[in-house]
């Protein structure tokens, strides 16, 4: 029987089209001359220029990047600690509970995370007076709660692959536990740390829901500005901005992928 290839190819083409045509159109129209998003009027980069002159958007972008960086850094620290507790100690009291609670934010709806954190921050403000106002700090903390879970998953996968004898050998050769961590463990899991950092960074950069819950006056992140401006009519500037974000995210994913790629064996 002759094997027919076209049904499979069709499915593949439709699948990719479904995923990437919208993004492709978005990128395409960021170079559109016309102000109307739906009409093609020739190639232009003028919207990128306008974007760079839009103070409100730029401020929001800068805030988002700062939040993303702080969030990613802290999430890597906490996520790595959690992952090493889970790989290092096979049995401790409450291990199953710890594992479940750690990974729960991966499946928890954003609305619930956002709302619960908002209630927490409000309660804290009333009892302790901290955080005095909601904004940079509260959004960073909120993002950390879920990105930490992603980091833990990535780092844990790497730690599990690590031969436990490596750390033991270092101890045996006279290295104290802290030296073992700095000279052996960290260099060996560095690719996972980098991948986790980038993952946490992008997760934070594009979060709208949780940030909207826990933010306060004056702290508007990039996704919030985008969302608000789209409701008042799409400007091609947003297309330009989205294109830049897609570029950054793609780059991060490629770097993370390269970092996690298994080492070539000679």
């Amino acid at each position, binding site marked *: 029987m002759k094997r027919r290839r076209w049904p499979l190819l069709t499915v593949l083409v439709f699948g990719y089209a479904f995923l990437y045509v919208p993004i492709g159109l978005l990128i395409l129209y960021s170079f559109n001359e016309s102000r109307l998003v739906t009409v093609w009027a020739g190639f232009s980069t003028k919207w990128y220029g306008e974007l760079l002159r839009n103070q409100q958007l730029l401020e929001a972008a800068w805030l988002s990047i700062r939040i993303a960086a702080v969030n990613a850094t802290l999430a890597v620290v906490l996520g790595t600690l959690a992952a090493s507790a889970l790989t290092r100690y096979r049995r401790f009291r409450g291990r199953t509970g710890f594992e479940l609670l750690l990974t729960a934010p991966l499946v928890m709806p954003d609305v619930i995370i956002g709302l619960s954190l908002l209630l927490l921050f409000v309660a804290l403000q009333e009892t302790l007076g901290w955080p005095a106002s909601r904004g940079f700090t509260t959004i960073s903390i909120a993002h950390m709660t879920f990105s930490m879970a992603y980091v833990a998953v990535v780092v844990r996968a790497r730690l599990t692959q690590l*031969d436990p*004898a*490596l750390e*033991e*050998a*270092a*101890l*045996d*050769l*006279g*290295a*104290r*536990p802290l*030296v073992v961590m700095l*000279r*052996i463990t960290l*260099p*060996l899991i560095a690719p996972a740390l980098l991948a986790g950092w980038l993952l946490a960074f992008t997760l934070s950069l594009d979060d709208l829901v949780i940030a909207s819950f826990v933010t306060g006056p004056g702290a508007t992140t990039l996704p919030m500005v985008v969302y608000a401006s789209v409701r008042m009519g799409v400007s091609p500037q947003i297309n330009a901005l989205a294109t830049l974000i897609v570029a950054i995210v793609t780059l991060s994913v490629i770097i993370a992928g390269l970092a996690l790629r298994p*080492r*070539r*064996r*000679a």
Partner: protein
Amino acid sequence: MPTGLAPSPAQPALEPWQDPSATPYLRIERVTKRFGEIYAVDDVSLEIFRGEFFSLIGGSGCGKSTLLRILAGLEHPTAGRIEIDGVDVTHVPAYARPVNMMFQSYALFPHMSVEQNVEFGLKQDRLPRAERRARVDEMLDLLKIAALRKRRPDQLSGGQRQRVALARSLAKHPKLLLLDEPLGALDKRLRENTRFELVNLQERLGITFLTVTHDQEEAMTMSTRIAVMDAGRIMQVDTPTALYEFPMNRLVAEFIGSVNLFEGKVAGREGDQLLIRTRWGWPLRMRGFQPLVIGTPVTVAVRPEKLRLCQPADPVASNRLSGQVEDIAYLGDVSIYRLRIAPDLLVEMTLTNVQPRTEQILTWGQEVTVQWSPDSGVVLTE
């Protein structure tokens, strides 16, 4: 070892373990390690002397690796005491012990070159740079891997990795070197060559070696003494010869080499010989000094190479069995024959192929009579 005293001709030189006045270099006192309900190491005591090449052997899960890890300080014993060169190290952490270990997986640091791996331990001791370099060079030369110094572990073959691991663990001149299955990951040919090299290295450096292996042949060829372990306990500690010729129980007899076992009961004693009635009815006569009551169940253990062919009419021979040749395994230097003596008894015999011949001395189905001397086996009660 007693120093400065030349052994007098009347008194042959004692090996340290035969000398009651010798001080052990490594003393393991009643060490127990429990994981939950399981006793991985169960009340083990051992004394190992300076310069020994000591082996722990046993099947998987017998506790030999756990004992090694306790000595390295990577596991903490539930009970017991460990002393190295007169110092109690039971509670000394792994990084402060004068002990180094060569891991079964070699555990070479993949992000460091060969020389960085070897230098790692020396750096932890904060040795001056010049001294470190000298020591690294010495080790790389000793193990003939100087040409590989800039390579990373993933650019090395299995044999080369083994050498780097050995160099790294020897670099600090430990008082005791622990080797976990040192030859386990090498192929057969390399393993045999490396055995001799390891022994030469150990004699040259004078470092006390303690290896763990499941390969009895490896332990026999390399060790001064061997401890056979089973279920967390030590069955017997002896020289390879004594272990092979005079095993203390069936387990040791079966673990080291091949052995024919004949079950029976003590039927009497004549001088230093025990008469045993086997469960197949025929009698055996073996040398045995144990004070055994008549009727005690015993097992006679005889190694396959102790058996000789004899004529059925030979009048002097005791311990004579007749049967048919059932299997022949020609190994070149020797041939192994399995003889059917009784429906439930096969006896193994090894004969050296002295004559260069293309035909076997014996053929399948041939009726033969074999015999062994009362001195060439042991009577076991366990």
